[in-house]
């Protein structure tokens, strides 16, 4: 999410943009552990698949405006494990999700009570790899209450937790999130602290948590800064994500960051850890990630028929030629 920005002003500040050359990282596989695909188009899915994204995690979040009833939550959670998972599969991308009550809407207490009652219906579903994204926004008492209740739920279900850290008063909010998780007896190794920056990363890593970084224009991390962080702290327990959503964001943030890391001299091993492996290590603690589901040698031939059916098993979508004026 972002304020309005002028391209002219950006050019004046940053110079002409450098083109993204995917060939630097061609053949690499990527895992985007935080991306809100319900807000994205099929063009984005196609571009992600082309750039090597083989799997992703879609955390439950707020939709840009508050929901007013329980059924809106129920249908949203259902869409993450149903329709969106199917849409993703059409592009050969394995779709996982985390389920939770986000911090902003936790402030609607009467509704939050009801949401807490239906969460157990969803967190045990196949492909639900954690409770998330939960944590603090305004850092109110209500946010803390539902954060704590959901930590208990994660503990009971044996699921990892994906923690959103606040935009405002980030450093204190991040510390407080970690303090409370430890107070509830959760293992830092099962917790992914998200949206880190230069100011928060050291403490998160020192205390044994996973540190996720969101590469998101204007408001969160830029990927040049990300390269420096990996150079400084090493690749262990660090992962990058796009958090692409309904705001100005980039669903190719993970492959682009990998390409930049490659160009700036990081090793292939380090790049693989922060753009693929560490996310799997963290979220596979749910028991819900089988790497074979997306790591098998891929041979998607759009012309292959399944039982005389022109659509591939699983409904692989045929590709359209975007450069053509003809739509048939």
């Amino acid at each position, binding site marked *: 999410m972002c304020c309005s920005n002028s391209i002219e002003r950006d050019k004046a500040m940053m110079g002409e943009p450098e083109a993204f050359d995917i060939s630097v990282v061609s053949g690499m596989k990527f895992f985007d552990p935080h991306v809100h695909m319900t807000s994205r188009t099929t063009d984005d899915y196609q571009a992600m698949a082309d750039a090597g994204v083989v799997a992703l995690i879609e955390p439950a979040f707020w939709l840009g405006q508050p929901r007013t009833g329980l059924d809106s939550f129920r249908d949203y959670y259902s869409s993450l494990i149903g329709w969106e998972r199917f849409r993703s599969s059409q592009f050969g991308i394995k779709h996982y999700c985390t389920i939770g009550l986000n911090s902003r809407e936790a402030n609607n207490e009467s509704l939050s009570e009801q949401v807490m009652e239906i969460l157990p219906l969803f967190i045990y579903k196949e492909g639900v790899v954690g409770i998330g994204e939960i944590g603090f926004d305004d850092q109110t008492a209500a946010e803390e209450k539902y954060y704590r209740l959901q930590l208990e739920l994660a503990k009971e279900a044996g699921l990892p937790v994906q923690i959103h850290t606040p935009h405002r008063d980030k450093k204190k909010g991040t510390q407080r999130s970690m303090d409370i998780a430890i107070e509830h007896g959760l293992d830092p190794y099962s917790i992914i602290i998200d949206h880190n920056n230069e100011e928060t990363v050291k403490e998160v890593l020192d205390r044994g948590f996973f540190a996720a970084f969101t590469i998101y224009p204007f408001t969160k991390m830029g990927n040049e800064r990300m390269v420096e962080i990996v150079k400084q702290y090493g690749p262990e327990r660090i992962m990058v994500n796009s958090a692409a959503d309904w705001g100005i964001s980039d669903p190719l943030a993970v492959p682009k960051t990998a390409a930049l890391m490659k160009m700036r001299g990081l090793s292939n091993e380090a790049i693989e850890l922060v753009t693929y492996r560490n996310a799997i290590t963290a979220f596979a603690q749910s028991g819900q990630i089988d790497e074979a589901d997306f790591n098998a040698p891929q041979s998607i031939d759009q012309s292959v028929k399944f039982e*005389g059916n022109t659509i591939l098993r699983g409904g692989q979508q045929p590709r359209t030629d975007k450069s053509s004026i003809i739509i048939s």
Partner: protein
Amino acid sequence: MKACDVVTANKLLLDIIKTNLSGEALNWVEAWEATPDQINGLGKAFVMAPRKTGKAIVQPSVLQLAALEDAGLANVSQWSIDRLFRVWLLGNLPATAQDKLYAAIDQLFLSAEMNEAVALYSALPFLPFPAIWAKRCAEGIRSNIGSVLEAIMENNPYPAQYLDEAAWNQLVLKAFFTEKNINLIVGLDERDNLELALTLTDYAKERWAAGRKVNPQLWRLVGKFTNEEIFEVLKTGLQHYDQVEQRAIALAVAASDYEPAKDYIDTFPELKAVLAEGSLSWDKF
């Protein structure tokens, strides 16, 4: 399926489940069998199934395979173990309190992820009080998820037995639209009807107008109902001079009593010859 067939089928499914599981997974299934209030525990067991049983494709024995074929359930041999278990779980629920059972299963439909939805629709023919799920089945046909549609449309005896004509026709039309394997629709020929034949001929005309091909299986559901209006459409198809399409239309007309259409087919020597030969059949299109 008849009630007695369901009992036999459930026994067979359980037999396959047990020979495909061992250790902790098998204990879990046996514990479930001994659970007194299964309706109360249904939600949890249904959702957790893959964590307990795994998701491997079942490997029935030669005997089990033969029994599946006898029961008209040959396709079950391609199911994953969690799907098979879930179907058995639902089909084996006590047929006592209808309202309570409906509420418990309906809740599963409302929060189903993709694989759960596939299992739920696959289970329709096995459920106690099967008739109460006709509306839910019609709702499922509105899905756009390929695997869910396949679970309803392909190798599933439920729709032909319980859907009213409007819902049935929607199923068949959507199967053509979404390019499902028409040959796998159970009861396809038994449930053909004039309304469906007219809708399908309109659909064929739309396809032609868009420059697209028509699935030859479509004519199988049209031929018997040939009348003046349909005959005009068939003539258009024959004049495309596409051999597959021509042969499908000829085979369709062979099932009709409408003499003008039969006479018209006879004006095509090649079609007249293959019909006389008797080598055409719908399975070959």
